[in-house]
């Protein structure tokens, strides 16, 4: 483990003050040249700090006495976390352009990924089946096209995007809204471990910092900043994804939106945003890839030999998902035959069984 310099220690020390917004942190730093100075002459800044926010002075004061760099080193080593400071080689250059650039980032995994071509896939935490399918398919093709998939490791679309990238053995970056040692949401633990191993998990929050609601909008600005463009697969009207889109537009990034069913509440947000002339429509991953002049990688499809009844069932599913009973009516097969045919097609990977006794391609 490398030793941190005195100024770096001061930055870490300031980062360890929990419950500050990035604006407050930037305001604190603007008071003096370095964070070192801030801690050295803390009491002389009392009034200025008090103006930034109530209770902030007390928080900093408490950290000043408690901060123990040795313990921090051992802890980071134990959990396999690393830190990169602003101005260092590994620090994402694009972040320097941010109005409130973080002074330090904590990460797990391969920091080199930030130099790859990154593309963000974001969306609602509660995707419908449409959102799921869109996310899976678009992410798969975009990552095959050579992009590193960036997302926020939240529930729903984020998690799907990361998972698909990992499935494709492509790189992925998760920018999270809490400390590296906090896994939120807990159900993503496995995914979190996998990304830490094969990808990169990045955060501006200090260890132990909980996933507070205001962290997510803050985190979103890093997601869009890291990427060349942002794809929104599904988002409702009140989705936090809108914040990411606004950041992306402010930062001059490309925004791609997947249009949805106009009656679906889950797609209201993306559909609404389509009114914005700065956004682009993505009806397939090709729309995204060709914009960046990338080739769409053709999936090598294995030729499978299907029997007559299998062809019939597959044909029936071509236009839409069908319920088991619809399939019986359409194909005219007996129940036993149809069940057996469905299992075989499913095992071949040609069709999918969906909840509620539906089948689809």
């Amino acid at each position: 483990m490398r030793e941190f310099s005195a100024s770096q220690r001061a930055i870490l020390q300031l980062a360890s003050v929990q419950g500050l917004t990035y604006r407050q942190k930037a305001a604190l730093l603007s008071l003096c040249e370095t964070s070192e100075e801030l801690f050295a002459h803390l009491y002389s800044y009392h009034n200025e700090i008090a103006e930034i926010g109530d209770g902030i002075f007390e928080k900093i004061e408490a950290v000043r006495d408690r901060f123990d760099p040795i313990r921090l080193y051992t802890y980071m080593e134990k959990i396999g976390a690393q830190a990169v400071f602003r101005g260092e080689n590994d620090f994402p250059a694009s972040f320097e352009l941010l109005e409130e650039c973080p002074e330090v980032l904590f990460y797990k995994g391969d920091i080199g990924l930030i130099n790859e071509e990154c593309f963000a896939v974001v969306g609602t935490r509660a995707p419908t089946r449409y959102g799921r399918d869109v996310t899976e398919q678009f992410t798969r093709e975009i990552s095959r096209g050579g992009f590193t998939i960036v997302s926020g490791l939240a529930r729903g679309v984020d998690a799907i995007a990361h998972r698909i990238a990992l499935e494709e053995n492509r790189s992925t970056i998760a920018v999270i809204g809490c400390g590296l040692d906090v896994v939120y949401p807990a159900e993503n633990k496995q995914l979190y471990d996998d990304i830490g191993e094969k990808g990169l998990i990045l955060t501006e929050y200090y260890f132990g910092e909980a996933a507070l609601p205001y962290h997510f909008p803050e985190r979103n600005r890093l997601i869009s900043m890291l990427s060349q463009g942002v794809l929104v697969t599904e988002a409702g009207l009140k989705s936090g994804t809108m914040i990411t889109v606004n950041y992306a537009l402010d930062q001059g990034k490309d925004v791609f939106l997947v249009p949805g069913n106009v009656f679906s509440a889950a797609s209201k947000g993306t559909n609404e945003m389509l009114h914005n002339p700065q956004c682009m429509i993505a009806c397939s991953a090709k729309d995204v890839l060709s914009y960046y002049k990338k080739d769409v990688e053709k999936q090598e499809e294995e030729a499978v030999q299907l029997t007559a009844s299998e062809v019939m069932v597959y044909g029936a599913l071509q236009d839409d998902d069908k319920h088991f009973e619809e399939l019986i009516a359409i194909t005219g097969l007996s129940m036993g035959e149809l069940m057996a045919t469905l299992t075989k097609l499913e095992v071949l990977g040609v069709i999918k069984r969906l909840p509620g006794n539906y089948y689809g391609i």
Partner: protein
Amino acid sequence: MLAKVNSFALSGLDGYKVDIEIDINAGLPKVEIIGLPDTAIKESSERVTSAVKNSGYHFPIKRVIVNLAPADTKKEGSLFDLPIAIGVLAASEQLFSRSYKDYVILGELSLDGKLRPIDGLIAILISGMQQGYKKFIIPRDNAAEASFIKGIEAYCVGTLKEACELLEEGGNVAPVPYREFESSPAEAVFDVDFADVKGQVAAKRALEIAVAGGHNVLMIGPPGAGKSMLAKCVVSIMPDLTFDEAIEVTKIHSVAGILDEKKGIVTSRPFRTPHHSTTVPALVGGGTKSKPGEVSLANHGVLFLDEVPEYSRHALETLRQPLEDGFVTVSRVQQTVRYPSHFMLIGSMNPCPCGNFGSKKHICTCTPQSIRKYINKISGPLLDRIDIQIELDAVEFNELRSRAEEEKSADIKARVMKARAVQSARYDSLPIFTNAEMNNRLIKEYCEIPAEAESLMESAFKKLSLSARASFRILRVARTIADLEGKDKIETAHVAEAIQYRSLDRKYWN
């Protein structure tokens, strides 16, 4: 003078002989009952005193001692009223005939001397018969119950007076005539038929397979999909009750006090639906009196648990032993009794707490954890005992299905019976009756599958992420599907279909 009357008491489903000895001594007028009586028996002194007086006899103004032998077992119930009254009359020499010694006497008295029916009579009659007693005096309201037992003479009386007249004069009253058992069709009892359920063909098929092979079923579907209706229809395709089964069921229902007195015997398969607030003793049996629980009341029938995850975890876990062994052992300080519990479990549940997971029309508002938590209420070991899991969705395919004639329960039942016949021939020398009861060794013996099916199963495990323990259950169900088709060997299609009945193993729940 001393009188000794024969009577019976119940321990679980078995009766045991109780000698009721009555002695009348000089002393302060009082009735003393000894021999570990419960409160109901202690109070019988008051009932007997009034009943004797109101039947035109005198109750001796002396010290009356009633001993219930064997003295060391706790006795309960109100069935000793009549034997005590007869004993008192005999001991006080108001009843001259000594013929009461030939009878086993049972009955509860009301204050005016009328007899009231008792619980568990059929169990007592059968035990009494097995122990060599032939003649019984029983309350008239229990007559129907007694009429199905061959080889006994059950004399029905309506009042204490009638009982005394029977004993004095004999001969005049004929015993209850024997009646041949006839199982009544379930449709007549439950008023449901599969023909009434529109659509849901996949579920019907799964239930047919389940009944044919004796498999337990879990139905997963949103509210309004028709889960309860389908479950109710299941009894209508089950084979008719045999006499032995009927007697076993009747015994349990009689002991529990829920027998229809007019009918006297259970003629159709029971369908029990305990509410999800049920307690463990109510479900598996117990309480201070060690009464049979719902699992035993559903013996040879269906136990339907609506909204399975709503039941307490503890209650669900207690189902494991009865499902596995076919009986429950209820142990209490006073006694340990064993009740049979051969039932078919049908469970129903929503796919998620809000019920809309996977629905086409509605949006599910549940988080993945809450869904997992909901599904995980059913533990692995319990799920292991449920061979068939199916999904339902409320679909309206009126225009698609209207031309199709819905199949009647009777037709399905005929197929079920055929498959059952195949199974009972196969398991002739074994102590099991259905495919669902096959253990792993028997599965290896009877469920050989072609190599093609073997590789299908293997890739199904990988592709569909089925859990490994599903394999035996898939084979059992495949065996039943083959039996339904009258095939000797399991074919690949049978295995392929059986794989479809493993809904809960699927990935999309996680």
